[in-house]
């Protein structure tokens, strides 16, 4: 088991290495550069900028130097935000996105599973139809529609929640409610459908029929046998969902003016802020790869059918 974990962990290193290398070269092939703008800077100013950011050196040398810095945990200076390093920018924004993402995912998971159980047990009853209709809406309506609708109702009409912005002294974490709800909505919907489908399958399985046949109370059948197997797909979904909810909160961050990592990611790509794009790519891929790794491990503990030999 532990040998498997170590081997699996070590295999992450080349993955990350390849991602960094590919991104490093790919973004440099995109048209335009960090210093191009509607007003072109004079040639000598451009030269000064290139020298300052070592872009006048051969690409391979830039790459090797960058990799050296990354190994030391230094993601370099931002090309766009000239008073800040990439470490500072990500260090300040990532915790905000993590906090928001974690709350949203906890909400989505708890509510999604609860709803999934109800509709699986009440299959084809009105409860089932109602929540599954909501789930379909959740999956199909984009976040940039849900967010503004919530804003309109709770901030503009009812005046109970702040319209946008991040946690401040006065508002406290009320500012988190709408963005967290909005962000959790599609994940909630997906988890609800996922757990319903999987629970239904388990409910029809032979070992559940056996459990019932030997006279176990329905409650015990559900909690002991059905849920354990039925929620496995949800667990494996949580890994990608967690990375998705953190990296995918860009729209929410814009609509609710949240100082998160998603907003600077979009901006950095449009600005060709090479170092900042790279920094974000590294952080995002680390999250993604690590989450998948964790899920793999956890799965082994939950599912007796999987053996790590």
């Amino acid at each position: 088991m532990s040998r498997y974990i170590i081997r699996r962990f070590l295999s992450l290193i080349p993955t990350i290495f390849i991602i960094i290398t590919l991104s490093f070269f790919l973004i440099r092939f995109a048209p335009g550069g960090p210093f191009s703008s509607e007003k072109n800077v004079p040639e000598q100013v451009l030269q000064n900028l290139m020298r300052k950011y070592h872009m006048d050196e051969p690409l391979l040398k830039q790459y090797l130097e960058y990799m050296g810095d990354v190994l030391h945990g230094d993601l370099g200076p931002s090309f766009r935000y000239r008073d800040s390093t990439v470490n500072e920018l990500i260090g300040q924004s990532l915790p905000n996105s993590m906090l928001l993402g974690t709350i949203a995912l906890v909400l989505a998971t708890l509510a999604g599973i609860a709803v999934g159980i109800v509709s699986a047990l009440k299959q084809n009853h009105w409860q089932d139809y109602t929540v599954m209709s909501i789930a379909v809406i959740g999956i199909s309506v984009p976040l940039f529609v849900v967010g503004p609708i919530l804003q309109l109702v709770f901030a503009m009409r009812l005046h109970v929640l702040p319209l946008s912005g991040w946690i401040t002294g006065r508002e406290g974490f009320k500012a988190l409610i709408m963005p967290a709800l909005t962000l959790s909505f599609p994940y909630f919907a997906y988890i609800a459908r996922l757990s319903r489908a999987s629970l239904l399958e388990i409910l029809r399985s032979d070992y559940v029929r056996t459990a019932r046949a030997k006279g176990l109370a329905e409650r015990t059948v559900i909690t002991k046998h059905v849920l354990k197997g039925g929620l496995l797909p949800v667990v494996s979904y949580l890994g990608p969902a967690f990375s998705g909810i953190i990296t995918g909160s860009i729209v929410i961050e814009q609509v609710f003016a949240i100082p998160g990592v998603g907003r600077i990611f979009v901006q950095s790509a449009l600005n060709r802020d090479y170092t900042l794009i790279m920094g974000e790519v590294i952080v995002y891929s680390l999250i993604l790869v690590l989450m998948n790794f964790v899920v793999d491990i956890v799965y082994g503990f939950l599912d007796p059918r999987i053996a790590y030999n």
Partner: protein
Amino acid sequence: MKRSLFVLVALLALAGSAFAQDFIIANGAEPSTLDPALMQDTTSNQFYLAMFEGLVQYDPRTSKGIPAMAQSWETSADGMTVTFHLRDAKWSDGTPVTAQDFVYGWLRTLAPETASNYAYMLGMVVKGADDYNAGKGKAEDVGVKALDSKTLQVQLVGPAPYFVDMTAHSAFAPAPKWAIEKNGDQWTKAGNIVVNGPYILKEWKPQDYILVAKNDKYWDAKNVKLKSIKYLASDNMSTNYKMFKAGAVDWMNGIDVSMIDEIKLRKDYQASAQFATYYINLNNQRAPFNDIRVRRAFAAAIDKKTLVDKVLKGGQIATDEFSPPMAGYTPQPGQGFDPAFAKKLLADAGYPDGKGFPTLTYIYNTNAGHKLIAEYVQQQLKTNLNVDIVLQNMEFKTLIEMRNKHDFTIARDGWVGDYLDPNTMLELFISDSGNNSGDHRNPAFDKLMEDARMAKGDARMKMLEQAEKILLQDDQAIIPLYHYANQDMVDTSKWGGWYANPIGYHPPKFIYKK
């Protein structure tokens, strides 16, 4: 897990703003820097206006320079030397502001290792500045000297009449040497920063907000009304507009274009002509636009007034000119809307009723507003010339790259003046200008622009008028569509000291609650 999360939330809540603010600005984006030498965008410039002060500052009504750190100045008879007399003023740490601080600030902007984008503005006017910035000259040879702690003398490359106004720009800021040397790149962070303007940085939450508070050491502190100002970094215009409507924002720069029909009816919507022009860029060296008749036919085929009145609706001003009008300068319009003449010109060029005309690709950067305009142009050319063009949108940096490489035939373009003078508009079309993406080449135009550099007063303005005439009447190098409008949301019945002006700078020093 849950408990630690709760503690984290509570801590974050406590760490939030401890300061109340008088005035809240939706600033449209996170500023790229608070260092005046490095500023290059309007978002950052807001903080220059709040925290720093140059020799002159922008008049809130006219955008012209008015005395600031310099109490007075005189220009030598040949117009090549300007001597500024500084007032008694202090930095926020109590150190007196001296002429040496200006010398240091200007040389710092120019130093090649600073890599300032706007160093070229100093280079344009100050003797020796361009060479120093290019690494070809020495700092000692730059024409800015402190005669004593209160007298600053500047040698110019020519009698640039706009020079004094220009010194209101952030590239000409004084800089606190001691604070910069002590904190290096971190000198603009709250607690480190030393300023000489009306406000000082209190809190900087990246991507969230910046809070500035009144600087009691400021020389004119008694006339500064707002105690503190909060600048929100939100870049979502729709959210900003909702915030404004809900009273959570006092001034919003820019508008939610999709809401223009609602917005333009509001009393707190402020639209005013901006010193800037939106135009169609034509590649003058590439067929079919290497033929003046085709360029002129296109100019004659587009009804700019309807574009502005029926499509844009935001207070823009339709134009056939490139440089906006100003005192002493009469812009010289190119070909106006005349569909019959357009048809004739195109026929003369060998394309009667558009027959045989190649299908051109009009490129523009992805944006709802640019798309509307592109579609309008497409429809006008079809209706009035029976010519088809294909629209292609792309990312901004890609568009810039294609324009720079002259790798286009017809493209969307725009230009915002850096200071109130036709020179900042027209110099774009000098043959070897780095921004001459349409590849306009006319020696007569180049010569007039060159001569105007050394000329003064009315004679100079006449030269610039003549140059614009060549650009638009002889060459029709581009097709101007309209002058941009500054679009702001601010209730001027509630806030005083905020005036619509051509550059769109609104120094917060003057803003007060009525």
